């Protein structure tokens, strides 16, 4: 091979961006087409340095926008290469149109999203409003809670996305700054082990197979469009979870690190639980443990590890015996209940017995979610559980200045 291998320590102190860069280096991507934007910039910055220093055999395309970045990825993926990029916030918003192209064309691109608030007002810090845009775009979506997860989930994302039974693009999201710029210990894989876990890229319907000419990006009107979209939805609903489970199992065998489609913390005998994403999952897990010890609240935490496909059945199993559930959305729904409230409500709606569910909007633009905030949510939940009904408004804001904001 025409590239150098890098010797890594068993544990490296990396931030989430560096973890993503190393995973991308280790899987030996053919084409990275990227346009930098805070806080994801260091991912492609580090990656291009690895390439310039001879650690990567591949192409790095500098383009004029995020729309062009994903377009470049789509072209390279259709041509038949392993492809990835990274972006945040406004960049992701500009990229949106092409995300649907990538998934509709069934191109297994991996996109690292470093979550950041959407302007206006301009803000570079982390919240989930950008990644919420991608929910219906047909991408598989993995969520990381710390730099170790970013590193590990990148390998899993490539493995699942590129599987010929799947062939769908995959997002790995991490919290801007709270993960992307927070250095923590990351247990590494050596270059060969990491590469072999994902394996050599196996092209499918690639344009560079000149003996089998193909047309990508065709037009289908009302005559055939629906069938193609139905096929894509069907494959997301039926084919992806088994492959994710397989990849999680194989990864656990290799590293001892276990990932689950729905992550649970202190849930065995829990009566009340918080559902959330990103770094908040771990903070909430720590608070749940403390409240169990100090206040006797049977608190648990449910972390969404795979946002798409939506783990409807898996969540039903986890929430069915709960008395009260708080859904925490780090994105302004702008005139509606939050996404997690709506989707978790959908999960329980046809159960015989269902928990009381409420919704919290928190952490916009990087506003800190403190352990004190989380403890207050658990106390609300305890009151709801004891009363067997809502004792609070359906939707409340956490950590915003001024008089308390609540709705519904």
């Amino acid at each position, binding site marked *: 091979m025409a590239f150098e291998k890098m010797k890594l320590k068993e544990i490296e*102190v990396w931030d989430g961006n560096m973890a993503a860069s190393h995973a991308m280096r280790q899987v030996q991507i053919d084409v990275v087409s990227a346009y930098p934007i805070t806080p994801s910039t260091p991912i492609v910055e580090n990656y291009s340095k690895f390439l310039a220093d001879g650690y990567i055999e591949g192409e790095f395309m500098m383009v004029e926008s995020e729309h062009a970045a994903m377009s470049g990825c789509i072209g390279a993926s259709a041509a038949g290469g392993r492809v990835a990029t990274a972006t945040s916030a406004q960049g992701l918003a500009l990229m949106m149109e092409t995300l649907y192209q990538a998934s509709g064309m069934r191109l297994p691109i991996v996109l690292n999203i470093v979550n950041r608030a959407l302007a206006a007002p301009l803000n570079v810090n982390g919240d989930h409003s950008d990644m919420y845009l991608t929910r219906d775009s047909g991408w598989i979506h993995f969520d990381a809670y710390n730099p170790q997860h970013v590193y590990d989930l990148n390998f899993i994302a490539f493995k699942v996305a590129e599987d010929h039974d799947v062939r769908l693009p995959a997002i790995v999201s991490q919290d801007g700054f709270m993960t992307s710029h927070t*250095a*923590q210990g990351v247990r590494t894989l050596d270059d060969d082990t990491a590469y072999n876990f994902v394996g050599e890229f196996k092209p499918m319907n690639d344009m560079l197979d000149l003996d089998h000419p193909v047309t990508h990006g065709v037009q289908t009107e009302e005559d055939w469009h629906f069938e193609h979209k139905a096929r894509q939805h069907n494959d997301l609903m039926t084919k992806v979870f088994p492959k994710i489970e397989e990849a999680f199992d194989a990864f656990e065998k290799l590293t001892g690190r276990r990932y689950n489609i729905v992550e649970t913390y202190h849930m065995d005998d829990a009566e009340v639980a918080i559902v959330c994403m990103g*770094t908040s999952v771990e903070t909430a*897990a*720590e608070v749940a443990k403390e409240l169990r010890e100090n206040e006797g609240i049977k608190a648990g935490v449910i972390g969404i590890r795979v946002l798409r496909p939506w783990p409807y059945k898996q969540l039903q199993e986890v929430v069915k015996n709960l008395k009260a559930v708080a859904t925490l959305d780090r994105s302004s729904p702008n005139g509606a209940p939050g996404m997690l409230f709506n989707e978790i409500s959908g999960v329980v709606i046809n159960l015989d017995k269902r928990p009381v569910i409420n919704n919290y909007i928190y952490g916009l633009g990087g506003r800190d979610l*403190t*352990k004190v905030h989380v403890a207050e949510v658990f106390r609300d939940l305890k009151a709801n559980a004891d009363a067997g009904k809502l004792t609070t408004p359906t939707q409340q804001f956490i950590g915003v200045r001024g008089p308390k904001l609540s709705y519904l």
Partner: protein
Amino acid sequence: MLEIRWHSRAGQGAVTGAKGLADIIASTGKHVQAFAFYGSAKRGAAMTAYNRVDDKEILNHEKFMKPDYVFVIDPALVYTTDVTINHKDNTKYIITTHMSTDELKASQPKLADKEVYTVDCIKIAQETIGRPIPNTPMLGAFMKISGMYDIEFFKDKMKGVLSKLPQKIIDANMQAIQRAYDEVK
């Protein structure tokens, strides 16, 4: 859990210092976190960086912290920002200044009843490294006050962290660390 807050100006190396410290502590088997608040701040703007250290995996991602140690690596920040915010009764302060601890406490009454140590990291950095980058000397002073590691062990580890720099710069940093270790009071 050991928690440290750095007060710095963007460009003075607090983030690098916090990550370097995390790197060294992680190599001894402990769990670490190093992060900072920057926003879109420019060089020279006041900023804070943070370290968390624990024997078990660190799950807490809140930015709020009641620090065990406060490092101030720019002398003016003692007056223009509140370096005592969210303090604990036993929070220890290591502050860069040309003044003695008593003079400093007299000039900033908020520090009067606090456990304060002083060292002139700016001067040390100027005289050894040749630039006012006070991050590595601060870590030398921290080793003295905390007794976390033997100073020779720490310097040896720090050489690894700085290994990509020219040998001359690494040697100068070692001198700076040792001087701050010796001079902090």
